[in-house]
């Protein structure tokens, strides 16, 4: 498929210089605008690529395939197709939350395309698997989560579509309002199922690309033990802890996040 079609399908935004490529993949829940405070920091040194997963942001929702996108492997296929069509080589892949795992799966498919993985709050499996594995969620929690999502998404899509611009609101803010989280509710619901029912523990040892794991100290979605588990099973991985609460360091603590990534890339750059 030609580049223009792929760019449109994934709503690709390309900024920066003609340098080594760095791809930012948003996590579950929103779209590439999440990287607003982090991605620009790399525009002086890298070719910065941001995109929206199918069904999020302004990607082409018609490209959603209920079978393909029923598992994270389908999303990994999308990423592989994207980097392949754009002709990226030795890219840095920055994935948040479920996109961390999607990136890891994509790197198994086409390791030659990736040089480094940066995984913000990764988890190979969210469901607990007694007695040894703690993912943080019980099956009833996942059911409750899917239900709550459904409840909110139904209301939200409409609310945001009709949101009235506040007084004194800038164009930037208004644009954010309409694009952010105005995702396709049905697709997001399926994405949530794919995410929270996934089990990619067996895939971790197959990853050959070196990676940075960024772990938040008080993260309900990716608790500390999960970060440790990832570090143990990902070869060539480095684990860094952030003393913050929450799951969105790139939104809540962008400066610290940029610094972590930059340090990692510089330290491990090949001479």
């Amino acid at each position: 498929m030609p580049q223009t079609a792929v760019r449109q399908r994934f709503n690709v935004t390309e900024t920066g210089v003609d340098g080594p490529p760095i791809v930012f993949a948003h996590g579950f829940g929103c779209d590439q605008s999440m990287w607003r405070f982090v991605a620009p920091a790399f525009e002086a040194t890298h070719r910065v690529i941001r995109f929206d997963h199918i069904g999020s942001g302004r990607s082409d929702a018609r490209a959603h395939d209920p079978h393909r996108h029923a598992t994270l492997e389908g999303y990994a296929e999308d990423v592989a197709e994207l980097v392949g069509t754009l002709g990226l080589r030795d890219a840095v892949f920055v994935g948040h939350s479920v996109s961390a795992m999607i990136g890891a799966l994509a790197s198994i498919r086409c390791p030659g395309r990736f040089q480094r993985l940066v995984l913000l709050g990764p988890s190979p499996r969210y469901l607990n698997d007694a007695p040894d594995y703690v993912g943080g969620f019980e099956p009833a929690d996942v059911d409750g989560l899917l239900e709550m999502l459904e409840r909110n998404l139904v209301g939200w899509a409409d609310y945001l579509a009709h949101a009235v611009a506040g007084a004194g609101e800038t164009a930037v803010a208004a644009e954010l309002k309409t694009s952010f989280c105005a995702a396709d509710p049905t697709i997001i619901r399926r994405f949530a199922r794919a995410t929270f029912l996934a089990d990619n523990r067996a895939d971790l040892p197959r990853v050959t690309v070196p990676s940075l794991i960024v772990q938040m100290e008080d993260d309900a979605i990716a608790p500390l033990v999960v970060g440790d588990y990832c570090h143990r099973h990902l070869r060539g991985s480095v684990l860094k802890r952030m003393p913050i609460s929450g799951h969105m360091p790139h939104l809540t603590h962008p400066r610290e996040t940029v610094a972590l990534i930059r340090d990692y890339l510089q330290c491990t750059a090949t001479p």
Partner: protein
Amino acid sequence: MSELPLRGMPCGLVVADADGRILAVNDRLCEVTGRSAEALRGQNVSGLFTVVGRTMYQTYLLPLLRLHGRVEEFAIALRGPDGHGADMLIHACVDTQGPEPRLHLAFVPYRARRAVDDELLRVRRAADRAPGMIFEFEVAPDGAARFPYASDSIRTRYGCTPDQVRADATPLLRQFDAEGRARLLGAQPRSGEELLQHFVTQRVDDEGGTAWHEVHATARRRADGSVSWQGHVADVSARLALQEEASRRHAAEQVRLSQAEFLGRVSHELKTPLNAILAFAQLLASGEPHRLSATQLQHVGLIGSAGGQLLHLVDELIDVSRLQGDGFAVSMAPVALDAVVGRCVALAAPQAGAAGVSLSVSPRVDGLAVVADERRLVQVLANLVSNAIKYNRRGGTVRIRARACGGRVRLTVDDSGRGMTPQQMQALFRPFDRLGAERSEVQGTGLGLVITRQLVERMGGRIEVESEAGVGSRFHVEFAAAAAAATVSRHLPLPLPRLTGERPGDSALPVLYVEDNEVNVVVMEAIVAHCPQVVLHTAGSVQAALRHLAVADPPVLLLIDHRLPDGTGSELLQRLRQDPRLRHVPAYLLTADTAEEAAAAVRAAGFDGVWSKPLDVHHTIAALEAALHWSALQRDDTATMPLQ
């Protein structure tokens, strides 16, 4: 200060810093969570929620707050004192007025609205699962059209998203044909009227494939002048195709039935007078009870042979008609050649003798079998042999041979007749074209070979001709070989033992003949006159037969015509069989109809056999006697019944 000075508010309130650390809460929030203001101060907001609530807060609520600055009516769950969730709607905003940014959160119980939401979600789930698309469609006064609602199957059915068509209906509408679009865009319900619309429109997809979509919807006019539709659209292509196929098959079946009915009636009408001609000719020629002069015998003979030719022509015409239609069925089975060839030779012997032509059969015919319809195979071979004799010369020969080769069997009839030129061979199978023989003294209609070829082809066989003018002709017919053949010839009557001696009551055996045609009655009376022990009773209709049987002794034999003025022979027999006195009386169906229809009627109604009209006098007398013997055996309790 950890408790806010707003006591008694109906909602829980929280103030937190930019990192989510709780600064102050109100009494209502303490009540819901079961924790004190002091205990909560300094804790992170995320600790207020259940596992699910915390996930929603961290993945959705916080980013929204960060980027939008406010969130309204977000469903979430606080953790109560016993660990259970308390469903809340959260309203939150970021306050950037003061020196430090603050998070303000308000929690309102989610009860009444929840009931509405639950219902909405139920309906949505059901609508999304429905196979067709459920929709609300709107046309504004200025003509702009959109779908305020479309169920999830819009994605798979029309390749659009609900979001897309919420703004503009064009991506979906342009897939429908002009008529469908006109209906949707042009409907003008009157005020207060609910316009019911039901139509089928053609839909063209991206690849040019077409399908039929059926719309069921109601349109009404809104106060602002827009027209609003609610309804359902589904792909009915498969259903329509099935319906079309069913009605096509039904129409074809109707045609076939009416053809068959027509031919049956024609057959009946033609053969009824023939019955009289042939039977009376035979009866007169038999010399009983009055001998005729030689000239009279000769004349009677001519009447008989003319009648026979007429019968032959009628049969051929009916065959040709039926072969042209769809209703001609052959019943294929393994058939032993020796029986078939033997029968043809027997049939042709008189003709061969009269023409001075010798008939021979090669011994290899024995032991070979083919897959064919036995009756029709006899017809084919008889036609070929008859032609071979007809177009021959005195002292000439006709040979019947057979050969097996590679799964097929080839039957050859060759003659030493006049042969044909290449031009004549070309015209061989043309109907009514007798290739010049019409100017000779040889009788024929020119239909025989037409029928023969069609019969051969219907049986999956092939026919070939070789010929040399002045030398002779060779006709080959080829069929699939059969492994083994069990032939039960339907033409040979079962031999029945004859009763010896007189039996009490053997005279005056009542036979009931149900027939409405007076000429046929006279024929039967004349035939029965040769069986003195029979007393013939007649009835001209179903009702007449029932009236007769109500008062008379039960007959020993029932002869029932197939076509009666007030019903069929089968219907009559079925009614008669309900009478215990008549349940086991042998019954025969008399019909001019073709064998297939007759066989079906016989099976269905419980006849013991069929007599075909026009009746051959000698065969009928023999059959009558056999039937009477059979009837006597049945009535005789002490006789044993060795049935061959």
